[in-house]
């Protein structure tokens, strides 16, 4: 319990929010809109888990938003050019992976600080896309949408897929030696090296995995609508980092779980629709969102303060 205080406090705040909604706006809990909401958040969840892993190894990736856009647009163009879905998905994952590889090489091998590297790739990729697409949408063929399934099948598949992915990642991080390496490297890279772990390889691998997850997430997003906006995913990095840190991933590395990220993301994702349901004017939204983020982590802070005093 003590170790998971942050996770629980986030779940607690989320539960409070949901309970309030159940009281004041029960219409929030309708199956179809809720399913749509979750499906729309599925890509963010996948990205946030990737970002969480990067943070666990004591790095950061703020280029995910741009990576996401690049994967989406390229996947969209390929699909529009008539490629079958079975080919588009692996290509998207591959592109994401190689973008991650670039970041990873610069960070792990050249030893540049990851915030600088990914800041650079964030700006560079985004502006490349602007230069090439000039903001123009990519129109997709009909068959891509919902992976060729019906809409509700597709949505269930996406939500299930994302949760499944989280479960797999959670399991891997907890029960695979390689997963534990992430924590070891994030906790103390030099100690990890002395223990026979290769911190550079672990860091590189994490960035590549992050990229691949972004590719998957981009596909999860692309199949949800018949058009791709090149601007898609802008601001995603902030959302993903927010979900991760609110969900208890320590920015100093070595600590955190993807289940916490799931809770953090759900909390963040619920705020905006909750505002709509509670008929709160939109200009209050950012202020309330800020307060909720602070509230969710304040529980931990207050508790730590009390512990300290004791």
């Amino acid at each position, binding site marked *: 319990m003590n170790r998971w205080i942050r996770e629980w406090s986030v779940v607690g705040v989320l539960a409070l929010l949901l309970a309030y909604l159940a009281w004041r706006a029960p219409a929030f809990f309708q199956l179809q809109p809720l399913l749509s909401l979750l499906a729309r958040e599925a890509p963010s969840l996948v990205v946030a888990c990737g970002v969480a892993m990067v943070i666990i190894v004591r790095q950061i990736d703020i280029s995910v938003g741009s990576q996401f856009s690049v994967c989406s647009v390229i996947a969209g163009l390929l699909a529009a050019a008539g490629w079958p879905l079975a080919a588009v998905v692996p290509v998207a994952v591959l592109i994401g992976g190689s973008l991650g590889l670039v970041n990873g090489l610069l960070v792990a091998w050249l030893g540049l600080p990851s915030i*600088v590297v990914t800041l650079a790739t964030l700006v560079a990729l985004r502006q490349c896309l602007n230069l090439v697409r000039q903001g123009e949408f990519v129109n997709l063929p009909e068959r891509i949408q919902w992976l060729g399934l019906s809409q509700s099948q597709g949505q269930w598949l996406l939500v299930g897929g994302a949760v499944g992915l989280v479960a797999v990642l959670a399991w891997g991080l907890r029960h695979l030696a390689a997963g534990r390496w992430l924590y070891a490297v994030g906790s103390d890279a030099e100690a990890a090296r002395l223990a026979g772990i290769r911190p550079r390889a672990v860091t590189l691998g994490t960035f590549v995995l992050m990229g691949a997850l972004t590719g998957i997430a981009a596909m999860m997003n692309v199949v949800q609508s018949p058009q791709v906006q090149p601007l898609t995913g802008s601001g995603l990095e902030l959302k993903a980092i927010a979900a991760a840190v609110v969900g208890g991933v320590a920015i100093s590395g070595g600590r955190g779980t993807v289940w916490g990220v799931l809770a953090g993301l759900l909390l963040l994702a619920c705020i905006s629709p909750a505002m709509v349901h509670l008929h709160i004017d939109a200009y209050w939204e950012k202020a*309330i969102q800020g307060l909720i983020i602070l509230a969710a982590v304040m529980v931990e802070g207050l508790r730590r303060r009390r512990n300290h005093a004791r």
Partner: protein
Amino acid sequence: MRAEPAHPPAPGAAAGPSWRRWLLRYEVLLLLVLVVEWLLFYHFGTSVNRRGVTVGFGTLDRQFDILRHSCEIGLLALALTPVILTGGIDLSVGSLLGLCAVVFGGLTHALGLPLPVAAALTLVVGAVAGGLNAGLICQLRLPPLIVTLGTYSLFRGLAEAFTRGSVTYSDFPAGFLVLGQGRWGGLPVQAWLFLAVAVSVWIWIHRTVAGRACRVIGFAPEGARFAGIGVRGQLTAAYVAAGVIAALAALIYTSRLGQAKADAGLGYELFAITAVVLGGTSIFGGRGTVTGTLLGVAAIAVLKNGLATLPVVMRLNAAEELAGLLTGALLLAALAAGKLAERLRLSSVTG
């Protein structure tokens, strides 16, 4: 079996030729980049137009424009430098700029307060907002990233709520607009303010024990406590100063544009952080210089503004995009070169 008696080398002997050490300093490298940028734009970005007037990058006006346009971001970068040196971060400065701008607008327009009073109160609001960050970080011991992520939303949200998103304050008296649009002693007025802040922060960081304390906290927060440094006090000072500087930037911004609106300074934090890290400050704290930050700001500002004067770029309508691309490239190149220089410096030491 012993070959030679080993004495510890005399102090300074291992340092190698000092000029070489100096040349390989990161700041010097950045200065070089800046000079090259400037010369390139001067050469390619200056022309004589049909009316026979010299226009483009090489004009004094242009240089002043660069100065005026980079003042606010420069101020935020200066505000962030001490914070980042302590190993923290303040994502909320851009939002705070927006909040302070509308607060100032509200105070002068809605409440009709005299300008100096309103300006002073705005600075107080900045200090209080910085104090809120500091309080959450120090008292509740929460990570700065999360706290300022929260206040990043909160401050912008308050600015929007305050103006219901739509109110724009304008019609400021000319006396106030001088601050952002006028000149004094040949330089834009805000450049003097910027200079004053830069010098103060430089003195604080490089010449006082408080600045040293920021560094120590950045390197080892626990170690700082064990050395008897008032960690909370120093952190509070850094965040409050960041708030006040952001408020000052808000005043300048308002004056420059002649309007105060809730979207003021949107996204500025990212530019400011970029400038700081380009300036060689370590995001993990401890390492960094104010000079580096200033050079970082200048390098980005000159790049961005200079590109817009190149005829090729203008015809392509791609100044914005190219500036982004090149900033990214510059960041990577500078940092990689910094690493290389460090290695060279070490090897020169080995001799």
